[in-house]
């Protein structure tokens, strides 16, 4: 709260990411910069191969940039930590040997956030927020895909992290459930005002979830644009819908085609 609202919470500055595949060194992103303010719903959008998930994992501290820095508050990010909680796309992110409540509790106690009855109370509070109180004692394999993702979100939010990182959390859900989950996520955000960094390849999802949308071009990922969004697919000053502007930015060629080849 004491934070100057204009001062960014997370700053990604000229970050180049590489990872080793079987016999190549792949550059996932090249000199990507952006900054996120507190309580932003910041969406990274791009086609597959633009390194958006790799970028998210770098913010999570799982991958070290070969160039550039990532800072959260005043600290440079060097390793994973419970101040940045990741919600994955995979349904198996819940530990199958723990019940719904134990999964949330585990996060709180393992990280040393809370212990004892305080932890139980917090876990129950967030499980109630995602409307799964009835299933608190169920094991993950008894839940549907959407419910598993809800538990993962509850686990992340219960940590009350400085930033919640979401890696295409709804991509593996059916379209009806996905729409419902987007609605619930926005509702949760209204309640908690948690800072979100959300990765997706769906333009509609980006427009609906984000208040800022970062567009990345593929091979390797570079920043194409950063746009604001109000949650509806509004018509901008140029008379075009936001979604069609995004589409043309992403797919109608780069302004300086083949730039990567010269560098």
């Amino acid at each position, binding site marked *: 709260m004491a934070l100057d609202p204009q001062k960014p919470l997370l700053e990604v500055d000229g970050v180049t990411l590489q990872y080793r595949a079987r016999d190549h060194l792949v550059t996932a992103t090249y000199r990507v910069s952006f900054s996120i303010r507190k309580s932003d719903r910041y969406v990274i959008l791009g086609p597959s191969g633009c390194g958006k998930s790799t970028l998210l994992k770098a913010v999570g501290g799982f991958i070290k940039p070969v160039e550039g820095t990532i800072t959260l508050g005043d600290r440079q990010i060097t390793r994973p*930590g*419970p101040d940045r*909680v990741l919600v994955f796309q*995979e349904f198996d992110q819940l530990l*199958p*040997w723990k019940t719904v409540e134990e999964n949330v509790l585990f996060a709180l106690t*393992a990280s040393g956030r809370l212990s004892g009855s305080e932890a139980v109370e917090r876990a129950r509070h967030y499980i109630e927020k995602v409307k799964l109180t009835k299933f608190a004692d169920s094991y*993950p394999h008894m839940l549907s895909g959407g419910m598993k993702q809800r538990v993962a979100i509850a686990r992340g939010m219960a940590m009350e992290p400085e930033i919640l990182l979401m890696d295409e959390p709804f991509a593996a859900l059916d379209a009806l459930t996905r729409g419902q989950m987007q609605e619930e996520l926005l509702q949760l955000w209204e309640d908690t005002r948690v800072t979100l960094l959300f990765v997706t390849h769906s333009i509609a999802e980006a427009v609906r979830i984000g208040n800022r949308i970062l567009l990345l071009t593929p091979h390797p990922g570079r920043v194409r644009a950063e746009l604001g969004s109000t949650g509806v697919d509004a018509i901008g000053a140029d008379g075009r819908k936001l979604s069609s502007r995004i589409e043309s930015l992403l797919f109608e060629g780069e302004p300086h085609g083949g730039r990567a080849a010269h560098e």
Partner: protein
Amino acid sequence: MSDETSRNPERPDFINDNPPTGFGVVAKPLSLLERVFDRGEVRKGLMLVALALVWEGYARWLDNSLLFPTFSDTALAFWQGLVSGNLLNATVVSVTTLLQGYVLGLACAALLTAFATATRVGADLLDTLTAMFNPLPSIALLPLAMIWFGLGNGSIVFVLVHAVMWSVALNTHTGFRSVSQTWRMVGQNYGLSRFAYVTKILIPGALPSILTGLKIGWAFAWRALIAAELVFGVSSSGGGLGWFIFENKNLLEIPGVFAGLLMVIVFGLVVENLVFRTLEQRTIRRWGMQS
């Protein structure tokens, strides 16, 4: 075009505001017979009864108790062995030795796996050693063990450790390696210490493989033990089941031989169904990691 079809007077839209009710129950409980046959124990129990009947029928038809005694004779010898204490003592001796070897083998496997998980040299060592020693029958080591450890219990325990540790270490290590990347990242994300990471993520995540390793190790240990006792005869603390079988064969007490074999089988069934099955049901089945 879609507009035209939706206005097609032959196929008007309709909305059902009163879906029919009165369909009775949606979920009907299964009948008693269906529920009884749904239980694995019942089906397997019936299977055992059928096998015993086939045995009895074939042995009666063969009518040669020196080659193949009937089930009832075997059961009688089994009962007499229990009552007289011969069979019971032999079983106690065997199981005591077995447990010593098994536990020691598990400890060795744990050390080896810990080393293999922590370092790459350890992983290479485990791979190489397992490839070398896992196919080597434990009984082949018995002559050497008798030179090293003398004619006591020590030799048999050594052979058992060899029988147990490779398959357990191999399975546990394979299990650790196949723990999902997502679970690993979850563990790191919440800042688990190295020890907590192993106990809270790696071990439960690898439990299906670990349990398989424990089961294979147990079976290997039994085989090695009975074989060793057959060759070795009486160890310092008295004869085990292998010795019981050998002795009865020398006396041409063939039902006694069968009773000894039956004891090995019964013990195997009991451990499999009571210990390992319960363990699986309380853990990996309950967690949906095994169907």
